[in-house]
């Protein structure tokens, strides 16, 4: 038996070394540079990226772009596996939920030297997007798809209920009043619904009650203090009293939200730019993209979120990668994205809105509202390393509160765990 194992191990070693040899031969290459560019998307989104790649390759015939694409679910698993296995993509799009972790773990290259050398004007980019990619004065990527998380208002439902649309600077009390003026037990039409998928859903309410989940410098947990607790208790009370659909406590409920909204049984829901794209295509939908309710005297309650295009530290072709990144997130790339309506304009180029908008199409006020939100109403997420782990503690506590637990208790109980996460992630 032992001899058998030895023979087999020998076999394995031989096979392994043969394989490895083949690989290293392939590594030595001359001629055009090939960049691996990773991104997520569906077939329509992939079409735009293809156009951008072609436009770039025409301009730079000595650089070839090899796309690495998958659906959003498990996209980060894929690129993290590639990085762990020493095959990092040269240019990659990363969701800002994870970006600070990518920076801290040393996976991405600082772009500040390149930006200074080439004189890139950072004023072109949304400030809140840049914020989410800066650590210790170094910028680690360029923003992509920066957009608000709007409150979508279903015009038909509002009209039928005889409720006027709120003003853009509506308060959280206005919000509560609107939700309570619906009578779901009678006609099955709800004022508001959520899913408990991520913190972005409850943060506007938390901010509107004058609270926060993490301190300004994100080093302290503040979710068990009065503002946050009041907000969560509000949502919990509305849920317990039947003003929110029962499935609102389900984190997997996202699809149902769009269902109810499209069926005109839901007046308000939170929606991203992608969400808008989807709902636009449903016949007969009349809706607007609005600000989130605010606190009296404090307007910044609408989540403004970004993704980032970055260059892998392990990339062997950083110069070429930078050339592509500049194009992708520069005026040319943005132009192609906006024309294809991949996302609303993100760069400070007002004319781009004309490319994006279609006359008479809902939401009609998206241009004004988006610009207002960017200027006055926006608020970035409390992103930091360990964000996903912190979120995984907070959301079950919110769910528990919705199911009847006292909100103060629910939010206080997780303090120790969250502080531990912050502590381990600050080393």
């Amino acid at each position: 038996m032992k001899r058998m194992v030895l023979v087999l191990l020998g076999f394995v070693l031989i096979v392994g070394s043969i394989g490895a040899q083949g690989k290293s031969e392939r590594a030595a290459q001359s001629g055009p540079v090939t960049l691996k560019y990773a991104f997520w998307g569906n077939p329509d989104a992939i079409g735009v990226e293809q156009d951008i790649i072609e436009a770039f390759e025409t301009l730079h015939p000595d650089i070839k772009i090899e796309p690495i694409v998958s659906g959003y679910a498990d996209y980060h698993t894929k690129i993290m596996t590639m990085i762990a296995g020493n095959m990092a993509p040269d240019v990659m799009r990363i969701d800002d939920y994870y970006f600070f972790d990518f920076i801290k773990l040393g996976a991405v290259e600082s772009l500040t030297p390149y930006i200074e050398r080439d004189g890139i004007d950072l004023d072109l980019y949304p400030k809140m997007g840049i914020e989410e990619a800066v650590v210790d004065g170094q910028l680690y990527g360029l923003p992509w798809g920066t957009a608000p998380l709007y409150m979508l208002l279903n015009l038909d439902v509002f009209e039928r209920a005889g409720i006027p649309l709120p003003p853009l600077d509506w308060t959280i009390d206005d919000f509560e009043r609107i939700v309570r003026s619906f009578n779901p037990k009678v006609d099955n039409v709800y004022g508001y619904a959520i899913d408990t998928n991520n913190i972005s859903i409850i943060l506007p309410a938390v901010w509107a009650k004058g609270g926060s989940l993490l301190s300004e410098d994100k080093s302290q947990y503040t979710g068990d203090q009065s503002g946050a607790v009041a907000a969560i208790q509000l949502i919990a009370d509305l849920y317990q009293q039947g003003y929110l659909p029962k499935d609102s406590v389900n984190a997997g409920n996202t699809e149902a939200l769009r269902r109810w909204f499209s069926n005109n049984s839901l007046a308000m829901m939170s929606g991203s730019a992608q969400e808008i794209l989807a709902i636009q295509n449903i016949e007969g939908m009349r809706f607007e993209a609005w600000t989130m309710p605010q606190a009296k005297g404090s307007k910044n309650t609408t989540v403004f979120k970004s993704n980032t295009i970055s260059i892998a530290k392990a990339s062997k072709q950083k110069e070429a990668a930078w050339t592509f990144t500049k194009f992708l997130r520069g005026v040319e790339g943005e132009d192609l994205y906006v024309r294809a309506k991949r996302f609303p304009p993100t760069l400070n180029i007002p004319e781009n809105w004309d490319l994006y908008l279609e006359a008479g199409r809902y939401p009609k006020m998206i241009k004004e509202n988006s610009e207002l939100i960017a200027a006055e109403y926006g608020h970035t997420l409390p992103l930091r390393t360990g964000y996903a782990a912190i979120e995984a503690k907070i959301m079950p506590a919110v769910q528990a509160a919705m199911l009847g637990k006292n909100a103060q208790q629910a939010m206080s109980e997780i303090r120790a765990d969250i502080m531990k996460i912050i502590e381990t992630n600050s080393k």
Partner: protein
Amino acid sequence: MIRAEGRAAFLFLLPNIIGFLIFSLVPTLSSFALSFVNWGLLDKPSFTGLANYRELLSDSIFWLTLKNTALYSFVKVPLNLILSLLLAILLNQRLRGRNFFRAVAFLPSVCSSVAVALIWSPLLESSKNGLINHLLSFFGIDVIPFLVSPLWAMPSVIFVGLWKELGYFMVIFLAGLQGISRSYYEAASIDGANARVAFFNITLPLISPTTFFALTTSLIGSFQIFDLTSVLTKGGPANATNTLVMYIYQNGFQFFRMGYASALSLILFITIFIITLVQNHWADKWVFD
């Protein structure tokens, strides 16, 4: 004689074992090794000894997910095996359209867990719009909060899991039933044995190796449940359906803690291993080799 057997065994095993060593055993051993490091996947692993294990002992989410996973398994597996065996016996009869019914029962297994969860999510909606609640309302039953009540969430997941796998294990039991020669039953019938005696004295013993396989793989599979809960409830509400593999996956690929995830996997492995050992020992009493 024994050396000849040993040589023959070597040759029979060779094709499979080479691949097994490289693609199954070595990765498994590597993941054990990873449990002694801290690794964020994007950086280099750093040795931490037993720190991960010390941490998980006081990790309340670990214990919770272990409990949830055990609950799921110990309820679903017996139900699954019993019902699948009954189904197999039923569809082993000479019925008209038997092949059609077998195919229909097997149909749910054909989809991936993700597809199954996507199909059942809207059906289990906690309002009269959900198909199941809609049907229940005809019987005057109030809306049941299937996926949103800590009481109902796990039973709902078990239900969907059963729906998916009843046909799968039915097929396995059918194969086992096929292996029983009719002559056994004929002999028993001549001896005057009735159906119940025949079932317990012929059928059950003779399919016992198959049953052992079904029990073992069903347990191993249930302890690794992840896709289903991930889509139906994302582990909620309030971690009521959070499972061990889901927690492992989150740690490895969302919390940037591959070392900790590997330690959790090793504990999962030990748990399944012990249960399988116990089951194996108990099986010696009833499995016919």
